């Protein structure tokens, strides 16, 4: 039940885009067509689902205060927390590279669908943001952390596909010149964010 709760919360209430503005750069840049938006969204779900559990293990067995106690009592009061930024970003960059190579080897169709988006994802704020939120939320076990990662990814996917669909349609309407493109995308995202606010308070 807790898992379902975390999943729903991370999709609708703590949505990466509408509540925290994470991954906005690629969200705005790649949302002109629904097809490419779906590709990038899938890649984000995938990478979040893989990197969050890895970073969870790193955090709990290497970085957190007292996390090294499994190596011996002398190391019980070591706190490597200040290294977490470097570790997390290195893991993300490495995993993205590995995933790219693995997907290319084993599933050429998926690779041609995701291919160009995978390198972009290393610098997508929502991936590092997911890892840092995971650190802050301090999940009790790896299952919850993984579900959180997948849920955040799905939330991001929904957001980018929705805005891409709206932007495809809005091309046919008469938007004032200075608002065309970027300005309109910002305001639509704001309105969608207000709509998503109505989910707040849902608890399963």
């Amino acid at each position, binding site marked *: 039940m807790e898992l379902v709760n975390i999943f729903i919360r991370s999709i609708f209430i703590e949505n990466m885009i509408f509540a925290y503005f994470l991954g906005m750069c690629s969200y705005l840049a790649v949302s002109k067509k629904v097809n490419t938006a779906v590709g990038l969204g899938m890649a984000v779900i995938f990478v979040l689902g893989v990197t969050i559990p890895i970073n969870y293990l790193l955090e709990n067995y290497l970085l957190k205060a007292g996390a090294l106690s499994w190596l011996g009592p002398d190391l019980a009061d070591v706190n490597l927390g200040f290294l977490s930024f470097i570790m997390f970003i290195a893991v993300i960059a490495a995993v993205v590279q590995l995933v790219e190579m693995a997907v290319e080897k084993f599933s050429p169709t998926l690779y041609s669908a995701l291919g160009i988006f995978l390198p972009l994802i290393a*610098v997508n704020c929502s991936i590092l943001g997911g890892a840092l939120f995971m650190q802050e939320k301090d999940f009790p076990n790896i299952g919850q952390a993984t579900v959180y990662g997948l849920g955040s990814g799905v939330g991001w996917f929904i957001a980018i596909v929705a805005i891409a669909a709206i932007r495809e349609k809005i091309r046919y309407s008469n938007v004032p010149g200075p608002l*065309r493109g970027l300005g309109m995308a910002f305001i639509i995202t*704001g309105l969608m964010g207000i709509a998503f606010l109505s989910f707040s308070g849902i608890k399963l």
Partner: protein
Amino acid sequence: MSTETIAAVKERKPLFTAKDRKLITDPLDDDNPITVQVLGICSALAVTVQVKPALFMSMGVLFVLIMGNLVVSLIRNLIPSRVRIIVQLVIVAALVTVVDQVLKAYAYDVSKELSVFVGLIITNCIVMGRLEAFALANKPGPAILDGIGNGLGYSFILLLVAVVRELFGSGTILGFPIIGEWALNLGYKHNGLFVLPPMALVIVGVIIWVQRSRNQKLIEAN
């Protein structure tokens, strides 16, 4: 031969040439990182509910941008281009760790308020974007100026949004009351909507609208 060298010495550039000045002033308006280049929105909007965290965030980004640009520009000929993203990420991550530790030591309450968003300076697209687009191909001097210019352009929008949100959302600026009791007694109400996240997006949208109606050449062709 000797006269030539003397002439060359005499024609030495002034400290800031017009090109150098352009590096600083362009990002403030025509080439603003947020409203025109669309970089660095990720961690920007969430910290603009009040002016104070926005101020600290701007200083952090300014520091990381200048130092990152400088370091990458200094070692630009040593970085193999295949692994450059990882090298840049590690440099930036180290700089952000410094900022985070300084904030934790000297401004703990702000550091708590910014929470994960300090760490997110690492993937702030402004930093990576400027490293990729400018520092990798330019000498350290212009790279520093580019860092300053883009950092200021970013700070400008950030503070503008923060001032609007704090003023209309809670009637204060930097915690000082601007809209006094008398206005509230006359029936003025703080607009709670400005404190909610979606309003930041709408405000940036409006800023873009104003900027593009002043500067028609930035208008997109749909």
